[in-house]
């Protein structure tokens, strides 16, 4: 594979996907989970197919901006999300209205969650902070273990992967919530992991070459590690795919971005990170060559 020579193509593919994601974000907006905004979530099994209007009629007495979805295999489970937070008494009252109208046998909603606005803000800030700290921690570690240009290339690849995953969130309107943080950090870990294996090979191969043909070294290293990259992503993808196919909704919301992240991580470690490193290296060489000639 001549990855380095064809880097323009691979950069273009990534940019297109990220651009689509950006456009979708602008069209769809960001779907923040109630744990980030504060609010209430109720899932009630109605045991029958019901029109949205009927549900709206009950909910409007409490919150006119509530979003209503039907979920579950039979679409008989109504999911109500509001940004105002109702305490357990209010929620019991809402549930009782449904219980009376549809003669439900249950005594409580299937699922019921509430987050106060201050808690939402706290969770959101903590989430942002944790992603930031993790990214900085990894950058420090890589810079310590590798040369700075490796670190820079790895971090750009990382931003690339996270952007692609964010696009997936935007395109499929997956709520950004607590699991989002776990998904992003897992992908961050995986992606760095993948890039490091390739960079480790480059680092090793650099010792054997005399001329500074960085493109050649990178090409060789990628080719030597490519079957590992693919096999690891296969084993990881297989397990996540099983989760996606068989899991419940929350797990699917978690598995889909992870699959995208693993694919992006594998792709970027092969087609983005190493070409970037070569570009940085060649630029460094040119400048040092220039300074040398100027000095002469």
């Amino acid at each position, binding site marked *: 594979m001549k990855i380095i020579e064809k880097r323009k193509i691979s950069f273009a593919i990534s940019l297109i996907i990220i651009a689509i994601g950006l456009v979708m974000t602008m069209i769809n907006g960001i779907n923040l989970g109630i744990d980030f905004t504060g609010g209430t979530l109720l899932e009630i099994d109605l045991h029958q197919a019901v029109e949205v209007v009927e549900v709206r009629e009950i909910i409007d007495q409490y919150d006119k901006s509530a979003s209503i979805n039907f979920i579950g295999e039979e679409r008989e489970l109504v999911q109500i999300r509001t940004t105002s937070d109702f305490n357990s008494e209010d929620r019991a009252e809402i549930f009782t209205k449904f219980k009376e109208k549809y003669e439900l046998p249950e005594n409580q909603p299937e699922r019921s969650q509430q987050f106060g606005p201050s808690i939402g803000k706290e969770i959101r800030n903590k989430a942002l902070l944790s992603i930031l700290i993790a990214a900085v921690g990894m950058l420090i570690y890589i810079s310590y273990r590798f040369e700075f240009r490796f670190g820079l290339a790895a971090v750009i690849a990382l931003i690339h992967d996270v952007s692609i995953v964010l696009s997936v969130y935007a395109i499929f309107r997956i709520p950004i919530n607590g699991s989002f943080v776990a998904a992003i950090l897992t992908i961050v870990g995986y992606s760095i992991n993948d890039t490091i294996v390739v960079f480790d090979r480059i680092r090793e191969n650099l010792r054997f070459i005399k001329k500074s043909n960085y493109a050649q070294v990178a090409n060789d290293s990628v080719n*030597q590690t490519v079957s590992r990259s693919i096999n690891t992503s296969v084993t*990881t993808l297989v397990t996540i795919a099983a989760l996606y196919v068989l899991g419940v909704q929350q797990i699917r919301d978690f598995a889909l971005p992870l699959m995208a992240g693993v694919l992006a991580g594998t792709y970027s470690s092969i087609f983005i990170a190493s070409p970037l490193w070569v570009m940085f290296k060649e630029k460094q060489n040119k400048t040092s060559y220039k300074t040398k000639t100027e000095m002469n």
Partner: protein
Amino acid sequence: MKTKNAIIFLIVIAIIGLSMFTALFGLQLGEYQIKPIKEAINQGLDLQGGVYVVYEAETDAEGSELDQMMVQTIEVFRRRVDSMGLMEPVIRREGEKRIRVELPGVENAQEALALIGKTAQLQFLTPEGEVILTGSNVVKSQAGFVNNVPVVELGFDSEGTKAFADATAKFIGQRIFIVLDDEVVSAPNVNSIIPNGVGQIEGGFTVEEASRVASLIRAGALPVNLTEVESSSITATLGINALARSVQAAQIGIVLVLLFMLIYYRIPGLVANIALCVYILLVLGIFAGLNATLTLPGIAALILSVGMAVDANVIIFERIKEELKLGKTVRSAIDAGFKSALRAILDSNITTLIAGAVLYQFGTGPIRGFAIMLIVGIVVSLFTAVFVTKFLLKLFVGMNINNNKLYGA
């Protein structure tokens, strides 16, 4: 040499097999009993159903005053929760002003929440609305019957006894009011002086209501007003379904990974698979040993980590293949493969470990479960993928299974 290695290999397989059996079905050895892993691991509310709520105290108190208030509140919560007779409820202070209450396996979450969060302020009032005595004067509170009608029977302390005797003397022929949480539950006529410090609330109760009110009064009033800042409930059906489907996903995912490794890497693949079984056993065992709580995201992390755990093996085996292609013997190819792969494995795992540690530090609830699983998974996979695989591969070589083809080259 050959037989010795074969025997060691068989013993190892037998131990792993026995451990797997124990993990699945438990083991009884005389006095000692090992629980199957399914029972030994705590399950989160999202897997077994239940309710949790985080209360915030509405107070400006600080320091030791606040501490005392929180301790008292927790004590009242504990008494109320104990009266529900639940397995393993959790009540703990979170941060400064918050208290988290987790009630696993509760069947009616709304009712449970109403019971814990009740102010339970009991007052006996004169016809003019003056306080005769309060819940703090009550030393005994139990459900009973008067003429076959359920009532709450109260016993007062000395101060309460005196106040009650005085009041019943003063207001004979009039009504006094028994108020629970700003609601008049009973307004009995005073027929005679009651000097012995006992009282009854006839509130038109059912038997259950009478015992519920009795236990609320017994548990005492909360020292401070509390607001629900976060709460969540999920039915057991939903939780158990989530668990069942995740376990099924895990089984299928793991089998597919095992098959892939076996087909692609043959003998080393088989060795990696044995190491993977050890990995799963160790992760679950450590998880149970840490008394950590398994959550839905935790299961996702476990399944994910299986896929990632074979990564170290993949790196090593690819290296071994390369060394074999260079013409090395199987034995020296294995040594060289492990040696050159180790650095990449360490570097790549440490970065994931950083992600896990940050998640653990900043995450709450289910996300913490995810982080613990991730961390345990990484540490264990380093051990199984490097040491266990190396040990087993050497055994195979020792059994003269040396054909290059069997090692994927």
